[in-house]
C-alpha cells in the first residue's frame, strides 16, 4: 500500500525534489504557495511590472559595477568619442565613457539600466494609483500600503543616487541642487552639507558615497521590503474587483501553479524585452553630450529624471524673494526650503497617512477584500486626482523652458500660469472629479432601474411612444448595486465635565466635520424594493392602454428578452 500512496520518484526532477523535501520540508511550502489563488485583472499586473523592472535593474546593474570606477580622481581622457578626447575628467566619468564606447554591449546595458529605472518608478507609481483608487489600502492592508510607500520613496533615492554616479555636468547640477536643499535647512544645513560631501561641495567624496548607497544599501532595503510586501500579499490574500460570486470571504481566480506561474513568468520576459527594445533603440542620458562635471556650466534644458521633475518644478515656481536675513546675520533660505522640503513633505505625508485618515472618517473597522469602483468613493477619487494634478502641474513647471521653446510661449507667463494652477488646479480637479463620480453613480442607478436603451421606439394605438429598454443581467446589476454609500460620522453628545468645551469632544467635532466633507454628498445604491417598484411600470399601468404595454412587454420578453419600461 505504501508504494502506491508514496511511489518512489523515478525521474531526475522528481528525485531531486524528493531529496530537497526530505531535508528541508520545502514540499509543504511549495504545495501551499502553488495552490494560492490569484484573481485575474490586468491592473493587478502593474506591481509585477515594477518587480520585474527591478530584477532587470539588478541584472544590468551587476554588469555595470564590473566596469564602473567610483572615484573622483582626475586624469586626461584618451579615447572615444572624439568630442571627449583629451579632456580632464574624473575616473567615474571616464569609466562611464569606457562602458559606453569600449565595453562590448556596455552602452546597451547602460541604456537598459536607465530605461528600466524610469519604467520601474513609473510602474510603481501606476501600481500605487491602482491601489489608491480601488481602495486596496483598507484594513487589513494599511501596513502594506506603508511598505509600498517606503518602496516608492526608496525608488526615488535609488534613481537619484544612480543618476548622479557618472559625474557628468547634468547630474553634477543635480547634486548641486541637493547641496542647496540640504543647506537651506535652518541651523543644521551647512553642517549637514559638509557632512554629506566630506567638506565643501563638490569635494572628492560624494561619488564613492553615492555609489555605496546606490549599489549596496538602497537595493538591499528595497529587496527586503519587496519580500515583506509580497509576504503581506500572500498573508492577506489578493483583493478582487466586485462581481457576481466574489465575496469578502473568497478569492475567485486561478492557482499560482500552473496558470499564474506561466503568466507571471512569461510577463517577466515581456518586461525584459520591452526594456531591451528601449535600450537598444533610444538614447538615454547621453553623458558624452554633457561632458565631465565642472561646477560652472549649466546647460539649457537641464532637468532631472521624470520622477524628480516635480521637485525641480517646485523650485522653479518659488519666487526668490522668500530669502531673508534675520537678526544675528542668519540667512533663511525659505525660497529653497519651502519648495524643496515643505511641499514634497506635504505631498508625501498625505500619501502615507491617507489610509488611516479614511478609516477614521469612515469609522471603519471592517476588513475589506473587495475593491471599490472609483466612482463609488467620489471624495477619495477626487482627492487622488487632485494629488496627481498637483504632481503633474509641478512636473510641467519643471519643464517650463521646453514648453516655452516648443510651443513658442513666454517662459515668464508659463511660470505665472503654473503658480496659479498649483493652487487652483488640484482644487478644480477635485471638484470636477467628484462631480463626475457622483454623475456616474447616478447613471448606474438609472441603468439598474430602467435597463439599457435599445433605440427601439414603439408607438401604441393611443398615440403614445415608448422606448424599449433591456434590463441588466445579473452580473451587470451586481457590479452596480453591491457597494455601501458611507454616511458621515454621527457626532456623539458631549459627555465630559466641560461639555462642548471638552477636548475630546472638540476633536470628535473636527473629525465629524472632515467626515461630512467625505461622505455628505453620496448616491445610495439601488435597493431591491426600488428595483421591483421600477419594474412594475408605475404610472404606465394606470394609463389607458396598459394592456398594450403588457403585450409589448410579454412579446419582447419572450422574443428577445427585452422589456418595455
Amino acid at each position, binding site marked *: 500500500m505504501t508504494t502506491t500512496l508514496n511511489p518512489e520518484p523515478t525521474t531526475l526532477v522528481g528525485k531531486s525534489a524528493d531529496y530537497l523535501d526530505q531535508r528541508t520540508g520545502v514540499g509543504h511550502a511549495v504545495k501551499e504557495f502553488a495552490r494560492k489563488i490569484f484573481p*485575474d*485583472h*490586468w*491592473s*493587478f*499586473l*502593474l506591481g*509585477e*511590472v515594477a518587480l520585474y523592472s527591478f530584477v532587470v535593474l539588478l541584472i544590468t546593474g551587476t554588469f555595470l559595477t564590473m566596469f564602473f570606477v567610483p572615484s573622483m580622481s582626475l586624469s586626461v581622457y584618451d579615447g572615444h568619442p*572624439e*568630442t*571627449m*578626447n583629451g*579632456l580632464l575628467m574624473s575616473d567615474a566619468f571616464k569609466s562611464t565613457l569606457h562602458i*559606453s*564606447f569600449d565595453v562590448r554591449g556596455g*552602452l546597451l546595458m547602460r541604456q537598459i539600466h*536607465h530605461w528600466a529605472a*524610469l*519604467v520601474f518608478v*513609473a*510602474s510603481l507609481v*501606476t501600481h500605487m494609483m491602482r491601489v489608491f483608487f480601488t481602495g486596496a489600502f483598507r484594513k487589513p492592508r494599511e501596513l502594506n500600503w506603508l511598505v509600498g510607500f517606503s518602496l516608492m520613496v526608496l525608488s526615488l533615492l535609488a534613481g537619484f543616487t544612480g543618476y548622479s554616479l557618472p559625474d557628468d555636468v547634468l547630474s553634477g547640477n543635480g547634486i548641486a541642487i541637493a547641496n542647496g536643499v540640504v543647506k537651506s535647512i535652518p541651523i543644521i544645513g551647512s553642517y549637514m552639507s559638509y557632512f554629506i560631501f566630506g567638506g565643501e561641495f563638490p569635494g572628492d567624496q560624494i561619488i564613492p558615497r553615492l555609489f555605496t548607497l546606490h549599489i549596496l544599501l538602497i537595493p538591499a532595503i528595497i529587496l527586503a521590503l519587496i519580500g515583506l510586501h509580497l509576504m503581506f500579499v500572500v498573508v492577506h490574500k489578493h483583493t478582487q474587483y466586485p462581481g457576481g460570486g466574489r465575496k469578502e470571504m473568497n478569492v475567485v481566480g*486561478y492557482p499560482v501553479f500552473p*496558470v499564474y506561474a506561466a*503568466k507571471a513568468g*512569461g*510577463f517577466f520576459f*515581456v518586461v525584459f524585452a*520591452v526594456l531591451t527594445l*528601449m535600450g537598444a*533603440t*533610444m*538614447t538615454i*542620458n*547621453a553623458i558624452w*553630450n554633457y*561632458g565631465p562635471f*565642472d561646477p560652472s*556650466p549649466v*546647460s*539649457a*534644458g537641464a*532637468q*532631472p*529624471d*521624470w520622477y524628480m*521633475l516635480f521637485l525641480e518644478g517646485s523650485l522653479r515656481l518659488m519666487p526668490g524673494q522668500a530669502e531673508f536675513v534675520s537678526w544675528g546675520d542668519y540667512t533663511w533660505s525659505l525660497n529653497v526650503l519651502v519648495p524643496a522640503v515643505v511641499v514634497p513633505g506635504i505631498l508625501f505625508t498625505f500619501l502615507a497617512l491617507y489610509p488611516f485618515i479614511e478609516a477614521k472618517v469612515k469609522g471603519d473597522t471592517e476588513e475589506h477584500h473587495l475593491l471599490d469602483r472609483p466612482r463609488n468613493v467620489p471624495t477619495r477619487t477626487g482627492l487622488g486626482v487632485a494629488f496627481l494634478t498637483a504632481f503633474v502641474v509641478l512636473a510641467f513647471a*519643471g*519643464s*517650463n*523652458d*521646453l514648453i*516655452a*521653446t516648443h510651443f*513658442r510661449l*513666454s*517662459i515668464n*507667463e508659463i511660470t505665472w500660469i503654473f503658480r496659479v494652477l498649483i493652487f487652483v488646479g488640484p482644487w478644480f480637479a477635485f471638484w470636477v472629479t467628484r462631480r463626475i463620480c457622483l454623475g456616474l453613480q447616478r447613471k448606474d442607478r438609472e441603468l439598474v432601474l430602467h435597463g439599457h436603451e435599445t*433605440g427601439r421606439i414603439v408607438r401604441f394605438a393611443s398615440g403614445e411612444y415608448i422606448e424599449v429598454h433591456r434590463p441588466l443581467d445579473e452580473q451587470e446589476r451586481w457590479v452596480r448595486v453591491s457597494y455601501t454609500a458611507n454616511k458621515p460620522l454621527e457626532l456623539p453628545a458631549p459627555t465630559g465635565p466641560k461639555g462642548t468645551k471638552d477636548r475630546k469632544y472638540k476633536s470628535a467635532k473636527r473629525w465629524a466635520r472632515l467626515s461630512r466633507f467625505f461622505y455628505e454628498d453620496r448616491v445610495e445604491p439601488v435597493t431591491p424594493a426600488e428595483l421591483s417598484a421600477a419594474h412594475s411600470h408605475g404610472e404606465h399601468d394606470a394609463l389607458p392602454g396598459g394592456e398594450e404595454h403588457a403585450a409589448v412587454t410579454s412579446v419582447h420578453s419572450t422574443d428577445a428578452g427585452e422589456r418595455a419600461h
Partner: protein
Amino acid sequence: MKALAARRHHRSAPVVLLLLALLVTGGVYAVLAPSQARADTASTQDIETGKKLFQANCATCHGLDAQGTETAPSLIGVGAASVDFQVSTGRMPAEINGPQAQVKPRQFDDDETAALAAYVASLGAGPAIPTDEQVDPAKGNPATGADIFRTNCAMCHNAVGAGGALSEGKYAPSLFKTSPRNIYQAMLTGPQSMPVFNDANITPDEKRDVIAYLVAQRDGSPGGATLGSLGAVSEGIWAWIVGIGLLVGAAVWIGAKSS
C-alpha cells in the same frame, strides 16, 4: 443608415471616430497649409543694387540711410557678416513684431544677399563674411569645441545645441540645421539676444572647433534615436508612452487571455 445606427454604440466607435477626425484634420491642414513662396528677381553684386534693395525692403524700419529708427537699430558698422546672417536665414526682413525675429524661408537669393551685405559694409567697417576655410568643420577639433561650447554656449543653446528658452518668449534657437557659416557669423556678430564672441574672446580657430563639435552632433547618437537631445524630460515622456504604454498593453493582453 440602419447598419450605421446599429454600430453607433460599438465600443470601438469612439476610437474610430477619433482616428477619422485626426485624419481629416491632418488632411485638411496638408492641403491648406501655406506653401513657401520664393522671390526670384534679377541681381547684380554692386553696392548700388544693394542700396536699392535696402531702400525698398529694409528702410521702413532701419531708416533710408540705415541710420536706425525707434523700431530698429542703426546698421552702420554692423558689417557684411551680420547682414549675411540675418538675411540668409530669413530672419530679416522681419515680417511680424514679436519677441525676436524668426527663421523663415529667405526672401533674397545669394546674389541679392551679397549686394545688401556689400551695401551695409560700405557704410562703415564691420566684421566680414567668413571664408569657407574659416568655417570648415573638418579642420576643427570637436573636443576643444565641446569644451568651449559647454562653457560659453550650452547655458542657452542646450548641451548639444538643441536650443533653449530665454525670458519673455525669446529663445536660443536649435543649431541642428544652422549652416557652419551662419554659426560663425552668429558668434562674431551676436544677433538678437546673443552676446558677441569677438576674436579675442573666442579665436577664429576656436570658433571653427565649436562648428566642428556642432556638426559632429548631426551624425546621430551612438545610443539610437536622439529623442531630440532634450534630456530627461523627453526621456521621461518616452518612458511613459513607450515603456508603460507597451507594458500596460501587454498586461491587458495577459489579463484578458484566460478570463
